């Protein structure tokens, strides 16, 4: 790997150097970029422009096939939203609630972020707007108990989905990670096979640290997919390529705006086109 990188640096082939810069500026990261360029070198052909080959390499990395879609078959399907502070968990959850409602599903939302000031108020306003049912306890109460109640309530009402909001936490804080693992265990005990999705919400402006987040959250609560939030800015969100490439986690949803309907299924092709600046 290192040698491939060195080779590329040592022998300045203009187009590859430019592509390297683009990938690095998109937060793809040094290691993933080196491996991608290596794959690109192997597959280059005179018949295809190099950018088109690169796009193909990236799409293949990102394409998760049947794992791309959210798992919503179970009744109720329990979806947990986890992540570090400020990535957009609550907003993403509200957007998904709105989408599921518009598809005619009955949705229960668990306000298991009992820590952040006014998080429950924020969630209440957002779920009302989305037309979902909120289960909340007092600020400071046990998040696992909130999740348990929400799941029970969903089963009693035959709701289709339970969306569990959790407090943001830095993955380096082992105590808080243990608390999150407990929420997951309690859900798993309440419904066999649950949680059906554990979605790690990643801020598109995040750099290499997102890889570490995915690794550590993955170990603690078995993350099943990534939601890339805030992708409508100047940040390209290339770190999800590294996450997919290194950890194999599928990217499931993308947040592209502030409105309740601005959450779309992840489309590898569109993502790569935007990442490479649309010029192919």
């Amino acid at each position, binding site marked *: 790997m290192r040698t491939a990188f060195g080779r590329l640096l040592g022998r300045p082939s203009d187009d590859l150097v430019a592509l390297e810069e683009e990938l690095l500026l998109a937060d793809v990261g040094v290691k993933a970029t080196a491996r991608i360029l290596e794959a690109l070198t192997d597959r280059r052909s005179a018949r295809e422009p190099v950018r088109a080959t690169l796009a193909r390499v990236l799409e293949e990395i990102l394409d998760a096939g049947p794992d791309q879609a959210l798992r919503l078959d179970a009744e109720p399907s329990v979806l947990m939203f986890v992540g570090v502070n400020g990535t957009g968990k609550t907003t993403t959850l509200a957007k998904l609630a709105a989408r599921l409602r518009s598809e005619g599903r009955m949705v229960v939302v668990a306000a298991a972020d009992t820590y952040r000031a006014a998080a429950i108020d924020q969630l209440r306003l957002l779920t009302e707007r989305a037309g979902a049912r909120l289960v909340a306890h007092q600020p400071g109460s046990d998040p696992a108990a909130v999740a348990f109640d929400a799941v029970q309530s969903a089963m009693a009402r035959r709701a289709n989905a339970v969306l569990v909001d959790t407090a943001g936490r830095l993955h380096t804080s082992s105590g808080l990670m243990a608390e999150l693992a407990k929420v997951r265990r309690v859900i798993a005990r309440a419904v066999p096979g649950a949680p059906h999705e554990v979605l790690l919400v990643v801020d598109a402006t995040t*750099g290499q*640290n997102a890889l570490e987040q995915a690794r550590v959250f993955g170990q603690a609560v078995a993350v099943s997919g990534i939601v890339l939030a805030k992708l409508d800015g100047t940040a390209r969100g290339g770190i999800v390529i590294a996450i997919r490439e290194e950890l194999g986690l599928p990217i499931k949803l993308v947040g592209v705006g502030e409105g309740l309907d601005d959450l779309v299924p992840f489309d590898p092709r569109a993502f790569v086109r935007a990442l490479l600046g649309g010029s192919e």
Partner: protein
Amino acid sequence: MFGSLAGRLQGIFRQLRGRGKLTERDVEAALREVRMALLEADVNFRVARDFVERVRGRAVGAEVLQSLTPGQQVIKLVHEELVELLGSREARLDLGQQVPAVVVLMGLHGSGKTTTAARLAVHLKGKRRVLLVGADVYRPAAGEQLEVLARQAGVPARVAQPRSDPVAETRRFCGEAAALGCDTVIVDTAGRLHLDEELMAEMVRLREELGPRETLLVVDAMTGQDAVNLAEAFHRRVGVDGFVLTKLDGDARGGAALSLRAVTGRPIKFAGVGEGLQALEVFHPERMASRILGRGDVLTLVERAQAAVDEQTLRDWERKLRQADFTLDDFLAQLRQVKRLGPLEDVLKLLPGATGNRLGEAKLDPRELVRAEAIISSMTREERASPEIIDGSRRRRIARGSGTRVQDVNRLLGQYEEARKVFRQLARWQRGPRRQRPDRLPRG
């Protein structure tokens, strides 16, 4: 944070140090490593490139390669440039004479503006009388969050109503500050998902109409390459007096810190370093540079220790430090004190030499402390004073006595050994022939 970058650079430098003579190719290889380490730490691509260019420009000078310690010379250059990039002195908040002094916090969604506003109020307590103003009229429950935090911080708050004009409301609140007995107003503004014209226009209006003394941009330490766009856009359009870098307590290597300063020339003034309202520190660039190079942040540790430990204990520690005798009893006492310093991982990261050894990796949770106390309490006085006499049969007895396993006893003794090493290192520093201050690097 910066953990990996520090480890990485230490590795590079170890290789350089071992060499008597360096060729240009050696330097070239080392600089390539430095560049990759910087990129992995999220330093902006162009900032990293310029950084390496500058070091190269100075390193290929004849005096470096022909000096007796070329490796040391290159390391020195990297450190100097790093300090240069981070800013050489800490930049304090400058609130001036005019009353009320207005501080505006801006930033993207989720960067930590509201929390920072409350933390800044706590930070200024005792020196200034702060009024918190919430000017986020868009995010649901943003006002409530600020009011809750203001109550926790023990300062008054005024919050603009949803969908009102935040600029007019804020101006009105600033007018009320004097009547409330406040001499400082901290304004928490609305965030956006990204840079948009509407937000910028609002910030420009705020700045023009309020004439804030300090306009601070709050930036998440985990931000990647985009930090540069963010900083440039806000600085060009609105004007930024300084930065607050949040979430520095994670393991983000925080390359954004280097980028922000490089593209705007404005200093980082504060760092957010934990949960809770106390978790805001003045940003010390030199200490940070030393931390990047794996030399530990002794000054921060000492400052925190002074806040948490009484003076007598501190004098005792200092004496022990000088004599470099450090028994298991001291270890236990220290563990107890450290409990009051904050999460252990945070504290350990500040210790020199803690990067890359078992101490730095140690994830100590409070239960470990209880176990450690039980184990040490189960030892005889002789065992505590001279741990080397603790053989296998003693270990078994201690484990039984403390209700733990022999492995636990072994681990505790291992940790003690590491701590003792660090202690010796600190003692050497204190008595060092050149009387170095811990924040200074050895020359050459």
